[in-house]
Structure formats: structure tokens, C-alpha cells
């Protein structure tokens, strides 16, 4: 499992791997927002948590079609499935690699970009925490979507149609946690729910993703 993880990380960091692409996309979306809604700081600081969450979600979506597609094209995926590692483990590692190359950098970059959007100082920590807890769920759900569409030639658009509705609960809990943090209320409930969502996806979705992979490679 660790070998597979290291391999995926190495492939992602090398040229053409798409690492950084998601991060750059995140930056661009956040920079575009003030052009769209105007530069009033009061408005920006109110919508900043939501914008950052939506941008993080889209950025993680952008790199999803790479999760299995490259391995599918060069034939490595069937080999991975015949390896002693169970298919569930493969999908879990793939999701972890995706998180480490998209979710984790986004989480680290979000507070800085939050300052760019004039976010409330009190909301920075909640933003960081909620992204840290919530983005693994995004990667896991996305990996399931990627497993469903791996055999399709133009699966990208379909992938977003399938995955985005499933992101809704994560987004609601995450944005709610940040909004409560900004208002200096207790944010324990949304954060706990978010953690539950992440734990549940990590426990159950590898099974579904592995089933989808097996069907696609039949």
C-alpha cells in the first residue's frame, strides 16, 4: 500500500502530473470573485467562507479524472487489481494520494487566500479545521465517482454531474462550521458531523468504488 502511495505521489509531483494545477485553479477562482461581486470588504468578508469552500470543492473536482484514468490508459489498473492488495485497498490509497496532492495543499493555502478575501480573523482557524476534516471526504467521494466513469472516453463532464450532488452535505457542514466560527459561536456540532461524514465515507465508499472498478474492468 505504501509503495503504491509513494508511486502515485511521485507521479503526481512530476511534470504533467497535475499537482499544483488544482492549487492554481483554487487561487484563480478566489481572485476572480472580487471582480465578480465588487471589492467592498464587508461583502467579501461575509461571503469568503462560502467562496473558499466552493472553490476548494471545484479544485478537488478538477483533478479527479486523473485518479484512475492514467492507470487505465497504460494498463496498470488491471495489474493493480490482480495484485495481492484488495481492490478496496487500491481505491483507498488512490483517494489518499488524491487528498495529499489536492486536499492538503488547498487546506494549507486556504487561510492565506482567506486573508486576500478579507475573512474575519476569527474564521481563519475554523476554515482551516473544517477543510482539514472535510477534504478527505471530498477525495473519497470523488474517487468513487472516478471509479464509476473510468471506462468512459469523455467521462469528465459526467463525473462532475455525478460527484457534485454528493458533495452537498460536506459543503453544508463545512460552510456552516466556518460561518459559526466567524460569528464566534460553538462550531462543535457541524465539525463533528463533518468528521462523521469523512469517517463514514472512508469506511464505506472504498467498497462501492472497488465494486465499480471491478465492473468496469470486467
Amino acid at each position: 500500500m505504501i509503495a503504491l502511495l509513494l508511486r502515485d505521489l511521485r507521479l503526481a509531483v512530476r511534470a504533467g502530473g497535475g499537482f499544483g494545477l488544482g492549487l492554481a485553479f483554487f487561487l484563480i477562482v478566489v481572485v476572480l470573485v472580487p471582480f465578480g461581486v465588487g471589492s467592498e470588504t464587508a461583502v467579501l468578508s461575509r461571503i469568503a467562507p462560502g467562496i473558499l469552500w466552493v472553490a476548494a470543492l471545484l479544485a478537488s473536482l478538477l483533478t479527479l479524472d486523473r485518479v484512475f484514468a492514467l492507470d487505465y490508459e497504460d494498463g496498470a489498473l488491471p495489474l493493480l487489481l490482480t495484485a495481492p492488495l484488495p481492490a478496496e485497498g487500491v481505491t483507498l490509497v488512490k483517494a489518499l494520494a488524491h487528498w495529499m496532492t489536492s486536499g492538503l495543499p488547498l487546506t494549507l493555502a486556504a487561510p492565506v487566500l482567506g486573508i486576500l478575501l478579507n475573512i474575519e480573523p476569527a474564521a481563519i482557524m475554523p476554515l482551516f479545521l473544517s477543510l482539514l476534516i472535510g477534504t478527505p471526504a471530498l477525495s473519497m467521494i470523488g474517487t468513487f465517482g472516478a471509479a464509476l466513469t473510468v471506462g468512459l472516453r469523455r467521462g469528465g463532464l459526467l463525473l462532475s454531474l455525478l460527484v457534485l450532488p454528493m458533495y452537498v452535505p460536506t459543503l453544508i457542514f463545512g460552510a456552516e462550521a466556518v460561518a459559526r466560527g466567524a460569528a464566534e459561536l460553538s462550531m462543535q456540532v457541524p465539525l463533528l458531523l463533518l468528521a462523521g461524514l469523512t469517517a463514514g465515507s472512508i469506511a464505506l465508499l472504498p467498497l462501492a468504488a472497488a465494486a465499480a472498478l471491478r465492473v468496469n474492468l470486467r
Partner: protein
Amino acid sequence: MSIWEYANPLRFMGWTGKVLPWFWALAIAALVVGLGWGFFFTPEAENFGSTVKIIYIHVPSAFIAINAWFMMVVTSIIWLVRRHHVSVLAAKAAAPVGLTMTLIALITGAIWGQPTWTTWWVWDARLTAFLVLCLFYLGYIALWAAIEDPDTAADLTSVLSLVGSVFAFLSRYAALFWATQHQDSSLSVDRAEHVSDVFYQPLLLSMAGFVLLFLALVLMRTRTEIRLRRIRAIETRGRRS
């Protein structure tokens, strides 16, 4: 003789062919009586005026929209467990009907919301849940359309419907963080809670009409899907020889 024998495509075509006209007749009768009764022979409700009559379309279509998804989940599980082709074809056939019902519920809700809440749309739990349900129907239909091999498509859409229903459910309750404007359920076992009797009886009748209409549409579409499969099989056989 077990219940599964009715899932044999040949038998299925036999009994549905006999039952279908009756379903249609009953559906039309119940809808005409229920909607006619509701529209012309019930009083106007206080606070609502004549807009209350939208209830006879809004509530049944919302009811069908949710239960069509449940039906798809059940038939998908049957497909995954017992590999009955008719089962998964019924799920495929139900999806566009469910989508239409979701859209009807959303649109009638908007038309109803405009005069009573003075807004077409609010972001509240129930409304959002229906929007998300609508997206799930779209994704399900799109996945069916995208995959060529019928068995692969059946497996993948079944898995999607299982996972999707968990997330649709979660979205429904996650959105409870927001304040709600929608009234509580209009139908519940507790008779004190639901709408008053004058509206209740025609409502039940039009609900029955919608259920029958749904069944008739799904059976008809499933028959069409079975015939399409047969045509495909004949065509491939013809190409081979």
C-alpha cells in the same frame, strides 16, 4: 412457483400486457375524479385563497418523486443480488418518470410559493432536498446513457443509486441547519397533524391516481425496454449470420 417467476421477461410481458390497460383506466378515473373534486368542489382555505388547489398536484408528485427513487434502489438491489434483467430495466424505466415528477413538484411549489411566501424559491431543507434529488436523477440517467454495454451500465447505475440515496438522505438532513419556511408534512398517520378533512379526501384520491399513473408509466416503459433489448439481440444475431 415463486414470485421470481413473474420476473421472467416472457411472463412479465404476458401479465403486464393484461394488467396495463386496467392500470391506465383506473389511473385516469382516479385523477379525473380526484383533481375535479379538488379543483371545483372544495372550499378555499383561509390564508391561502384558491392557491390551495395546487396541493392536489404538488403533494402527489412530490410523493411519487421520492418513492420512485426508493423503488429504483430496491430494484437495483434485486438486480445486484439476483441478476434479474427485468428488475434493473424497471429502475431504468422509472428514472425519467421520477425526474418528471420531481420537476412537477418543484415547479408547482414555485408557483405556490410566489403568492403565499412572496418568493419563487427559498433555500430551505425540503426545497434543497428536491433540487438535489433532481440532480441525482439526472446523474443516474446520464450514466445509463453514457455506457454502451448494458450489463456494465446496469451494475454501475445500481451502485450509483445505492450510494446516491445515502448522500441524498444526508443532504436532506444537513440542510436542516437552515431555517425552514415549508409547512410540515401534509400527510401523516396522526390525523390531527395533516390538512383538514375537506381537502384530505380528494387529496388521497389524486394521490392514488398519481400512484397508478406512475405504475402504468413504469410498466409501459419497462415493456418498451424489454422490446428494445429483443430488437438489439435480433440485430446482432442478424449481423453475425
